[in-house]
């Protein structure tokens, strides 16, 4: 009988990583089910959260803003980065560096400058937020896609698609994007999560979204606000996990 070798270092790393993620989440959850001064545990904070009139309104608003951000990110980044990789441009290291700027520039300076750069009809509506969220998510989304594009024979696949009769749009949609599927999924998850939880830029530009509303209700019921935050954490996590589970990589699925 062949026994599978146990990879102890891997188990240690995964355990530490799991603790790093789960301990704060578990602590927040434990805090959210406390009964306050009365002591004990119950789900009354969650019941309170669901009974708030604006809960669904702001959660949905942030969710569609985050979805719009994901769409903008994919529409801009996938073709741009494909062309950037194909061109083998000597400016690529420079562009790699520029993509990190949103991490360096203070959000206050960035928010005002970036808002002015947007067209006026966008500036006056809540639609300015997805464009600004896109810039905030750029360093993470860029790197996620960069890893994927570096891992495939991009030039050969593109040329094979082109010589088979695919125009640029079909090449990106039918060949490149599915070939870097896991990177695209990573980009979607990172961009969605960052957009859903973004607070600073939203407040600076005087918009109300789910995170700003949570801050507002926290003044009235801190434990309730923690419960709301837990829901806001679990819902997108569940959605993204479902996407991964129900739409896995076809080629990997077939090979099992």
């Amino acid at each position: 009988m062949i026994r599978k070798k146990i990879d102890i270092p891997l188990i240690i790393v995964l355990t530490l990583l799991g603790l790093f993620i789960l301990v704060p989440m578990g602590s927040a959850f434990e805090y959210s089910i406390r009964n306050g001064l009365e002591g004990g545990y119950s789900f009354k904070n969650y019941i309170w959260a669901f009974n708030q009139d604006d809960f669904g309104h702001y959660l949905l608003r942030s969710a569609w803003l985050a979805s719009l951000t994901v769409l903008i990110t994919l529409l801009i980044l996938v073709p741009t980065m494909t062309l950037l990789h194909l061109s083998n441009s000597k400016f690529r290291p420079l562009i790699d560096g520029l993509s990190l700027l949103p991490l360096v520039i203070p959000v206050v300076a960035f928010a005002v400058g970036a808002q002015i750069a947007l067209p006026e009809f966008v500036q006056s509506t809540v639609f300015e937020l997805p464009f600004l969220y896109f810039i905030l998510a750029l360093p993470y989304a860029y790197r996620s896609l960069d890893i994927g594009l570096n891992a495939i024979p991009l030039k050969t696949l593109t040329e094979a698609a082109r010589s088979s009769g695919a125009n640029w749009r079909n090449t990106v949609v039918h060949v490149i994007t599915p070939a870097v599927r896991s990177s695209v999924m990573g980009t979607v998850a990172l961009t969605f999560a960052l957009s859903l939880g973004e607070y600073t830029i939203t407040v600076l530009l005087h918009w109300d979204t789910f995170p700003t509303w949570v801050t507002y209700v926290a003044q009235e019921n801190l434990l309730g606000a923690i419960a709301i935050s837990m829901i806001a954490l679990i819902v997108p996590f569940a959605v993204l996990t479902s996407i991964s589970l129900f739409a896995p990589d076809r080629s990997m699925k077939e090979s099992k």
Partner: protein
Amino acid sequence: MSNQSLTVKSVSKNFAGVKALDNFNLEVEVGELVALLGPSGCGKTTALRIVAGLEKQDSGAIRVGDTDITSVPAYKRNMGMVFQAYSLFPNLSVEENVAFGLQMRKVDKKVRLKKAHELLDLVGLDSQSKRFPHQLSGGQQQRVALARALAFEPEILLLDEPLSALDAQVRTNLREEIRRLQLSLGTTTLFVTHDQEEAMAISDRVGVMSNGRLEQIDIPDVLYNNPASTFVANFVGTMNHIPAIASGDTVNIFGKQVRIKNSHSGSGEVSALVRPESITVMRSQGAGQAKIVTRSFLGASSQIVCQLPDGAIIQSLMPSQSTGELHPGEEVNLSISLDEVLVTHAKIT
């Protein structure tokens, strides 16, 4: 399938000041398989990529049949291409890969899958149609790539060293398969390779390239037996460089006066280019013209390597039955069976 002829007219291409193609001309007849053969950097792949539309030429024109396609983008050229690197789309199954070109041409799904299965049947992989590229061997992947390139009935088939990543046995089998398919479908084909055996084995004509130009294009026999230049003579097959003295338009090789067929300047020392099979080695009664270094039995023929007194090495290929009495260290005489040879002035060692 509407097979067409291919014409490449006066195409030039520079990469950062380096000439990749220099006034390159080529004609491939309908249904013909032409191989472009040459050393690395001779421009053969650049020529193929320009024909495919994946590279843009600086000047010149490309025609398919009577149609000028010089400015037509790659995806509208209707040319199937098989690449050196494995190029199957990893997210698509084998049948979807083969049907991809038809999908891009908006062919009905049932029709394109039927066609894909026909092509997979032709390359012997119909049973693998539901698999994904990473589940196939290298040879199988190139077979699927060939099926994909042929599925949409291209006017021209382009092969960019499709066998170079495969092991020897698979290479031999697949090149025969490519030829069989090409002949049965009658597809006009341009095949780029650096492997002369591959080119000679399956091509109707072989074009030898050097420095961005076509040195000679002809049927394999003529290319081998009657090379037009010393470059072609040296590049195709094994060639001896025999030190000899030229006198006018003849040269004395092993005591035989032979006519020189290429232009050269005046008399004096030259190197005569002679194939191993044109040299006969005979036992000498006394001191001979050369000494046998090695004798290798190759089956029907044997290779005899001799050394001349000046150190030059001469190879001879003779029927094995007539080499039984030849042994290393023996003094021998040499003769050649040619009446005309190519010569060079530089002695190549």
